[in-house]
């Protein structure tokens, strides 16, 4: 072989592999740009909600999944073998295929990558911000015809439970771009949970003011409430994400009239960022006092939520701010560990004679279902939602059980009655007051809660029955307390638009600054006087622009 052919070979190989890599990079891109006009749905598709396709229709999805929620689920069930999908194939001839499955904590990252590579599934479950992005990029299939023609009356009743207000948010130029599943915004309201058995043991009342709460926290820290002779308990549960999702400091801030990382109305009707207000500074100073008194975990700043939950379950901590659902998880697990453990719910304490006012979001969107532009069967997605609603009915109750491999939290799209917990509360309480043995309700949440409540109240139930009763039904339980907040004063987080331009650009820096300063003030490594400087730099580094943009949005809303 001479020199020239060798050279040619090398060059040829290089070119070939280059071409290969380009092809590999482009091949996976769906060809969405080619069809722009929305085509109408074939007229021979039956409008009956349970009409079965003569030929199998395929829908691709992706999933970030946790464990099947019900422990009775057979251990060999995976999202792909979920009995809901088997049944769906059997009854409607719709086949779901997962492009990928990851544990839920990796989902966001994986989904970002999928979006970045343009490799989108047919049906997607997304958040509001992602929705706005997809909308701007014209990536979403119009669902209006599919929804009008094929949604079952039950499904429509749920989706339009608020008079169609939420659904209208997803209409754009006469097109319907998403199927939203939303919830009662009060499900995000903050209340307070306390170890009832500890209060009783130390002869304390459920605190009504912040000062009382502080005394309780001190007693829980210093007076050995678990009676094991060791100083291993502390007052208030907290972790490194101060404003997040549970067991965090939101309730504490709200008690003191501070609403960090929320947009609230000031007295002139303009929106301001709660983290820059003097109330936030005062709350941070107060938390710092609690920290130096040892009422918080000294190392809360290094612990994530899982670690705090471990402390709650192990009976190390006696107070947690948060939402109504704690008894269902993880308080029931605390009772598994310690049969004497008991918890009580209370409204936020008052501060300076003023009742604590919780923050309530403008809306509580749980899941937004969208369909990739260009997918041929948008009506199949609506039918899948019909199917799920149908499956919750009583006539299927014998079959649709966790024991048979039905895992509801691995099924999408599922749309619920937004007010099902409120409905369950009134229906079940009425049935219990009437000493009924059976409950007659079409709301599956009511049926399940009634069963557990009956069991718990008769003394037979286990701790998960206790959890469901305390969470949803008990008048002094989670939902029982939360629903009373509707009649009290509360503050609304007014901004629910998509991130503004400066928000997208500066969010990383501003959040870093906020988290760093807040944690440092609480732990005392920075004096709270730094707060004023922080507000100045926050405004200078983009915060002022963001405030202007948010107010602009608010006026044009």
């Amino acid at each position, binding site marked *: 072989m001479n020199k020239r052919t060798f050279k040619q070979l090398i060059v040829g190989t290089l070119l070939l*592999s280059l071409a*290969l890599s380009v092809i*590999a990079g482009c091949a996976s891109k769906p060809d969405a740009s080619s069809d722009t006009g929305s085509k109408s749905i074939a007229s021979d598709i039956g409008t009956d909600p349970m009409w079965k396709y003569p030929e199998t229709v395929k829908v691709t999805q992706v999933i970030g999944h946790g464990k099947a929620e019900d422990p009775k689920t057979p251990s060999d069930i995976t999202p792909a073998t979920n009995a809901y999908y088997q049944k769906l194939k059997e009854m409607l001839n719709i086949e779901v295929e997962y492009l990928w499955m990851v544990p839920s904590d990796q989902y966001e990252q994986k989904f970002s990558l999928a979006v970045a590579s343009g490799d989108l599934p047919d049906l997607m479950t997304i958040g509001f911000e992602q929705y706005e992005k997809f909308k701007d*990029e014209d990536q979403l299939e119009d669902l209006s015809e599919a929804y009008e023609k094929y949604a079952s009356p039950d499904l429509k009743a749920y989706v339009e439970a608020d008079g169609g207000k939420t659904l209208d948010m997803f209409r754009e130029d006469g097109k319907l771009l998403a199927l939203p599943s939303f919830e009662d915004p009060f499900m995000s309201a903050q209340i307070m949970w306390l170890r009832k058995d500890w209060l009783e043991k130390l002869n304390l009342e459920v605190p009504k003011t912040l000062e009382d709460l502080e005394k309780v926290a001190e007693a829980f820290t210093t007076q050995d409430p678990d009676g094991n002779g060791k100083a291993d308990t502390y007052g208030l549960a907290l972790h490194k994400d101060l404003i997040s999702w549970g067991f965090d400091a939101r309730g504490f801030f709200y008690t003191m009239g501070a609403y960090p990382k929320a947009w609230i109305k000031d007295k002139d009707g303009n929106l301001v960022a709660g983290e820059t207000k003097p109330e936030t500074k005062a709350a941070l100073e107060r938390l710092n006092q609690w920290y130096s008194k040892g009422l918080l975990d000294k190392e809360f700043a*290094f612990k994530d939520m899982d670690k705090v939950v471990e402390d709650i379950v192990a009976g190390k901590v006696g107070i947690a701010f948060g939402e109504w659902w704690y008894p269902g998880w993880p308080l029931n697990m605390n009772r598994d560990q310690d049969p004497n453990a008991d918890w009580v719910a209370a409204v936020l304490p008052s501060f300076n004679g003023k009742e604590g006012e919780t923050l309530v979001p403008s809306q509580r969107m749980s899941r937004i279902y969208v369909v990739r532009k260009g997918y041929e069967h948008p009506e199949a997605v609506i039918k899948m939602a019909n199917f799920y609603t149908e499956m919750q009915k009583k006539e299927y109750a014998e079959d649709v059980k966790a024991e048979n491999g039905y895992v509801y939290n691995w099924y999408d799209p599922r749309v619920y009655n937004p007010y099902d917990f409120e409905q369950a509360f009134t229906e079940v309480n009425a049935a219990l007051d009437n000493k009924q043995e059976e409950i007659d309700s079409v709301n599956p949440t009511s049926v399940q809660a009634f069963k557990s409540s009956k069991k718990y109240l008769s003394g037979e139930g286990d701790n998960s029955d206790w959890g469901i009763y305390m969470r949803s039904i008990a008048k002094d339980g989670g939902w029982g307390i939360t629903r009373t907040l509707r009649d009290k004063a509360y503050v609304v987080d007014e901004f629910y638009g998509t991130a503004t331009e400066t928000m997208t650009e500066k969010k990383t820096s501003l959040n870093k600054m906020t988290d760093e300063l807040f944690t440092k003030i609480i732990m005392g490594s920075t004096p709270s006087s730094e707060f004023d400087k922080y507000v100045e730099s926050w405004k200078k580094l983009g915060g002022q622009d963001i405030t202007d943009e948010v107010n602009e949005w608010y006026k044009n809303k």
Partner: protein
Amino acid sequence: MSNTAQTQPATVVKPRSSKRVSTFPLHLMLIPGVIVTLIYAYGPMFGLVMAFQKYVPTKGFLGSKWVGFKNFEYIFHMPDFYQVLWNTLIIAVLKIIFGLLVPLILALLLQEVAKNWIVRTIQTSVFLPYFLSWTILAGVIFEIFSLNGPVNSLIASMGSDPIMFMGDKNWFRGILIGSDVWKGMGYNMILYLAAIIGINPNLYEAAEIDGAGRWKQVIHITLPGIAPIIVLLATLSLGSVLNAGFEQILLLYNPLVYESADVIDTLVYRMGLIDQQFSPAAAFGLFKSVVSVVLVSISYYMAYRFTNYRIF
């Protein structure tokens, strides 16, 4: 984003044309490697165009708007830019320095141990952490340095106040550097030991006859003998000066120590994957790669000058 520093000297092959024909089949074996490199190392480079675009994923590279150097302007004006750059440099440089010195001292000490089984035991146990993942080590480090951990128990038994190591910006860097050196020291130590074994034993005998003690032997024979490998390792690690150890820091840091431990890679991670600012994150990554290429070139040149080491 990452550029692995080469620490192993590649074999110097300089075939001349007459030999090329006979080694040709061997060259063919390179093809799979070349293809894989092209697909996974060169292919993704096309993605770098997003550093010059306002990249919108669903519009792709062809549909996104070109913005020139705006993304670079943006990152250079980020308030955190100089902080993370400084953190990256200081952490990486200290890691390099201690990562070279500690294994050297260990190797020299180990050389003086006569009993073979002790040498082997120590070698193995020092090498072991090299194979553990940071995910596991992070959990261990948190336990060791927690307020109730062994280190603080020791401090308490000496009558001092406990120290919050993981939340103290001064201690935290030390922990980062210390744990990184501890994890990686086995690898360099083996390289040094191999170099020491390569020194001609006659030199030691001659020195002994001339009356040199152990210490003098180390200074005048061992150290000069392994100087080339020290210089080689040092210059090659220059290329990784902007890699402060992403995985380790991401697993260990928290808002309290942002000031001293937030580095380029962790900032790019939060920008790109958490906040979905793809374009500025890509620009930051590209900036880092350009600086690294310059440093690698310098270090390659220096390696050639001082130790005659060359690949091409």
